[in-house]
């Protein structure tokens, strides 16, 4: 093999850089991320979601995507839940009615997994102090 010395040194440097997060972590690093803590709605009339817990956990983004498509593009604003209840398809008008604080609900998991949905670039939270009149 030509230049075997250079190649092996190169490979070692590559492996070192590639595994650096692990070394950083082992050498103390930052403290571990806290597991998400969700603040759930407590009021009696806020106990029913638009779909099942399992569905919302796994597929809420699909649901929201469907909602925005139907409201904006089809002008259809009513959602029928699996148990035939009707809801207004609205992030701020329906979801936030119960989950009033995105920092204590949405952001908990999103930050944990490094997800940054851009909902809040346009949609506003009623309860955020800077939005209160």
């Amino acid at each position: 093999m030509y230049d075997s010395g250079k190649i092996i040194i190169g490979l070692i440097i590559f492996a070192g850089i590639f595994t650096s997060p692990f070394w950083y972590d082992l050498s103390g690093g930052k403290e571990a991320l806290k597991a998400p803590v969700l603040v759930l709605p407590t009021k009696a009339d806020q106990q029913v979601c638009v779909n099942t817990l399992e569905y919302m956990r796994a597929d809420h983004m699909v649901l929201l995507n469907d909602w925005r498509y139907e409201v904006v593009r089809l002008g259809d604003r009513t959602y029928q839940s699996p148990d035939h209840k009707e809801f207004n398809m609205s992030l701020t008008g329906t979801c936030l009615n119960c989950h009033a604080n995105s920092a204590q609900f949405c952001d908990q998991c999103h930050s944990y997994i490094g997800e940054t949905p851009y909902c809040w670039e346009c949609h506003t939270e009623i309860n955020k102090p800077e939005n209160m009149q």
Partner: protein
Amino acid sequence: MNKSRRNFLKIAGITAVGVTAGKFIPAEVKDSTAQLISKNSGLLKKGTAVKTDSKVRLAMVVDLRKCKEGCTKCIDECNKIHNIPNFGESKDEIKWIWKEPYENAFVDQENFYLSDALKNKNVPVFCNNCNNPPCVEVCPTQATFQREDGIVMMDWHRCIGCRYCMAACPYGSRSFNWRDPRPFIKNINPDFPTRTKGVVEKCEFCDERLSQGLPPACVEVCPEKALAFGNLNDPESDVRKLLKENFSIRRKPELGTNPEIYYLV
């Protein structure tokens, strides 16, 4: 609507068509998928004939004789409920309704001697929600599209900010978010989204209010009742009656866009 149908629509690459409940639009205008496909499969628009295949054709009539000089109630209300920022300068400006001198609003009316009533008249201008909208034709992502009832809508989730629609609009009705608008909105109305930087926006005939059976906000707040709104395809509607009894003009109708805002002069 279930997910599979929704996905079908998406795959078919169809511009969507809206149906809004409430007093302005009869409920029976529910669309069928077949209709959607036949309506949108053509590569090129066929002439500039008015689309007559839909039951609802929303339009506005502005009575300039009633519209009061110096009054900005409609503009203020629109700005307030739609979270329209005020940058304090014209470069970044965003506007949905505003007033232009008659000579500027109707540049093609090259009349040397105007009646006194029109000479220094400031005319409220909006997006014309054209029946044959050039902006919809040029949009590369269908972020702006025309609903069955004629409203030219914006999908702010989809807009890539290429501003081709602004180049295509003959009325200068479209605004672009040159920067983040949020810091320039005095009081944010949480019931309506703000916009993010890099997307285009314009008047949409208050589609969010129509869905609740309410008229556009400007029509509602006008103290002079100078604005009327309704279905042009309904001979009994306010707008049809006004057009029947009065002489009306539109902005640049010669371009074939079929603007849906009529002015009584």
